[in-house]
């Protein structure tokens, strides 16, 4: 039985009176890739941010098995645009107190193919900014990777690079949760699919069994 690396129990979130996420349970186990689907405003980004610890839930708990490291790539790039990719990564590596920040930065840059990039983030293309956004999430070699619409701005080659990375993490016993609007991506890559609508889980199961009309 694979160990659960990250577990959410009855997590919910409201902004003022507006409920954006109804209480929901979710487990991410070793070697598992889970796709998170649903229309815009369904609560996907909120759920991922809560799982990442970037947003406090209004109710429920998130627990990670020790010593699980969680990486997060938000939908909107979260980085300093006046710093170069290396400077961004160095800063976040030092803030995260990684043992060997230089090595961690080198690995993350290599993983997304930005090792040679010396321009500031503000001067990069949208796709390259997204790659840097992913690289920051990869710092510290996470066991669980939470990706919020990771392929939205990537070209075909970079998408393939991303899925290779996801496959590698799965093979190494890690877990990946990614939000997507593409059912094809989910069917190709994920072991499980969770679909949200209006903040509620409306489907949870194998991606191949999901039919949009079923929700």
């Amino acid at each position, binding site marked *: 039985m694979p160990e659960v690396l990250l577990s959410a129990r009855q997590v919910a979130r409201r*902004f003022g009176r507006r409920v954006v996420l109804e209480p929901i349970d979710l487990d991410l186990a070793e070697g598992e890739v889970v796709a998170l689907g649903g229309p815009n405003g369904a609560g996907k980004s909120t759920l991922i*941010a809560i799982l*990442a*610890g*970037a*947003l*406090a839930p209004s109710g429920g708990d998130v627990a990670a098995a020790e010593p699980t490291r*969680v990486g*997060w790539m*938000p939908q*909107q*790039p*979260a*980085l*300093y*645009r*006046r*710093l170069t990719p290396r*400077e961004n990564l160095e*800063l*976040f590596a*030092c*803030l*995260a107190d990684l043992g060997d920040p230089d090595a961690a930065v080198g690995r993350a840059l290599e993983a997304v193919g930005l090792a040679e990039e010396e321009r*500031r983030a503000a001067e990069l293309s949208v796709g390259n900014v997204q790659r840097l956004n992913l690289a*920051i999430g990869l710092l510290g070699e996470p066991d669980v990777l939470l990706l919020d619409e990771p392929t939205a701005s990537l070209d075909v080659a970079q998408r393939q690079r991303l899925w290779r990375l996801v496959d590698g993490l799965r093979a190494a016993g890690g877990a990946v949760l990614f939000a997507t609007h593409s059912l094809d991506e989910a069917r190709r890559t994920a072991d499980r699919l969770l679909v949200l609508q209006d903040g509620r889980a409306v489907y949870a199961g194998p991606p191949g069994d999901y039919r949009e009309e079923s929700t």
Partner: protein
Amino acid sequence: MRRVVLLLRKDIRTLGRMPALALALVAYPLVIALVVGLVVRYAGERPHVALVDEQGALSGLLVVGERRFDVERRLEEATEVDLVRMSRTQAERDLETGRVVAALVVPPDFITKLRGLRESPTLVLRTTRGGLGTRVVEKMRSLVYSTNLELQQAYIDANLAAVDLLLHGGSGTIGRTPFTLLGIQRARAQLRALERSRDPPVAARARELDTFMSQLQGAVGQVGSFLRATANPIELRQEEHGGRTWLLSAQVQGYALALAVAFVTVLLGAGALVAEREENVLGRLARGLAGLGQLVVEKVVYVALVGTALGLVLAVVFGIIVEFGDVSGGEPWLRLPLLLAGLVLAAVAFGAFGVMIGALAREAATASVVAFLVALPLMLLALVPAGSIAAAEWIGALFPFGHAQAALSAALYDEQPAGTIVREGAWLVGLGLAYGSAARVAARRMLG
């Protein structure tokens, strides 16, 4: 602490990559400091006062002894206020609309009474209620006092001339009537001649009269000193000292420094925390990389560093001008360490205020506008003269500007600045902590 330092290094590096902003941060306060320096130096020095003299009662010369007075001209050339001649109706309208802060009404018999010397003529000063009214009353009192003093001096001189005539004799006039006076000295000379008379009763009476005249001479001789002493029990003599009192009087330096630091730190502070939100990194930092408290502290320190550096540059520029520009302005180099302490405290308090505004506003554009809109009137409140409007003082006390200005001015030129710096420094620390705490609470909303 390590995380605060890491973020601080990032912010300083980022600022270095925004040359336009860095330039504006230096240039804008300098321009503002110069303008406000001028305003502080000259504003309110000559308030506009309506002069209502519908009968032309001020016209005509007043002759006192050898001197002639043109009271009308004296008032028109007054340095205390700017007297603007107008009708009574116009004066009342301008007083209501605030174009003039007071109206000076001249009675029709002004010069007549002044010439008659039996009754003092009365000028009526009409003011509005409030601080400016009080200020113009002080200015007008000063003007009337100085005019009285000049007239008094002329009357004393005329009286002394009469005393001199009494002592030494000679010709004079009363009104237009000429007269000749023997004088005490010459009277005594004639009495001494009579003392040598061969008629003993005549000689004895002459000696008796001479003794009296001698006593009279002594007493009249003292009149001049008594007149001057009773007219001016305390005299004030003005002596010019040092160089020109140009823009950079120490007080103006204090205002300019406080203003420059306030503008830079409040605006930069308002944008600093918001910038993290707009870079979308608050969520990342919240994942155990840097707490909101650490982030608020880092922003306050960052803004305070920039503000202090700017203040120091300004102080050095002022120092160079004072040193080489023949300008009086305190002891710029000796007081630099003390000034540095004042600048740090001021920058921290202003920075915390700015960060709080940013945390409340949550958006860069809103934060900048709100910071400007809130800070400007609060800074101007500190320019309201002490003791004039109590409410302004209370509100001003809750904003760091007045305290910063007082601390910086004391650091620059007070003979014993420690007391003021400690008192105002305590205010600045207290306000900094209060605003910082409020910023920390408000920052929680930024994560949502």
